């Protein structure tokens, strides 16, 4: 069941990056039950969700070049700084669409009644993200433009 949960998010990441930004994926790593601390690779967005069986969050953490390339492909404009408002808005909406896609599938299949909180997006210098006392799966995804990481944390079960 847990595998089903992170598999659903991985599928959404891969398909939506392809559809929205034309970004293909070279390699998808095996899910790691990381937990603890992870340093952001550049820019990260977080969408929290809660429902009648589980609650959790979906983090998508990208290297600068991946994020800037994704934004350029979606918006048609090249930005060179992750702190640009349109970069922050685009990465945040992208995660909203990815999480929305996964949550829709989980709700339809498992009756989880999940709803999303608005997305959070952040960038900074050596930002460390902490996660503890929850189940967590980290999946590294390599693309021709660099790497991104999907971190799904949750409580409860499907």
């Amino acid at each position, binding site marked *: 069941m847990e595998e089903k949960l992170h598999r659903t998010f991985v599928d959404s990441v891969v398909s939506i990056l392809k559809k929205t930004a034309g970004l293909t994926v070279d390699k998808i790593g095996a899910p790691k039950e990381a937990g603890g601390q992870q340093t952001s690779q550049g820019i990260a967005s977080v969408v929290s969700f809660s429902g009648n069986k589980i609650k959790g969050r979906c983090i998508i953490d990208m290297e600068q070049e991946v994020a800037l390339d994704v934004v350029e492909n979606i918006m048609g404009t090249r930005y060179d700084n992750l702190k640009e408002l349109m970069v922050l808005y685009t990465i945040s909406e992208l995660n909203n669409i990815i999480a929305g896609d996964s949550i829709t599938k989980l709700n339809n299949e498992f009756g989880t009644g999940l709803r999303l909180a608005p997305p959070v997006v952040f960038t900074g210098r*050596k930002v460390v993200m902490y996660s503890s006392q929850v189940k967590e799966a980290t999946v590294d995804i390599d693309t021709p433009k660099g790497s991104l990481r999907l971190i799904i944390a949750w409580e409860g079960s499907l």
Partner: protein
Amino acid sequence: MEQKHTDIFLTALESVLSQFGFGGVTLNKESTKDQLFIDRDFTVVIGITGDVKGNIAYSFSSDTARKLVSAMMMGAPVETMDDMAMSAAGELFNMVTANALTLFEKQGKAAAVSLPFVLSGGDIYAIISTVETTALEVDAGGNELELNIAIEE
């Protein structure tokens, strides 16, 4: 008259911190922001879904973090913010948010709190909502905290 969002969170903060022996909460400054620039050491972000939805970001210094966590651990000294201390800080603000949601419930608005998420680092630029975020700088028993409240109804 309905209590304002900001008052609800201040009431909840005071109520939870008082359980750990911290004195009253004083509001020093209130402002509104579209984008957050976080220069404090730690931030706990908590998402809310339901009739009230949004995100709350609680930011504080390392010194404040150690004092708060120490108080939660019955006064045990906290030298460094390790995983255990981070988890305690997340839990503390989870309690504050859950407490605020019980106050919203009294207004007939049901909502659920999601998992707390803690981050640290320098010069963090963040957006937690497409609505205006209300930033409250507060003093809690000599400890400075910033509450960034982005609630959408």
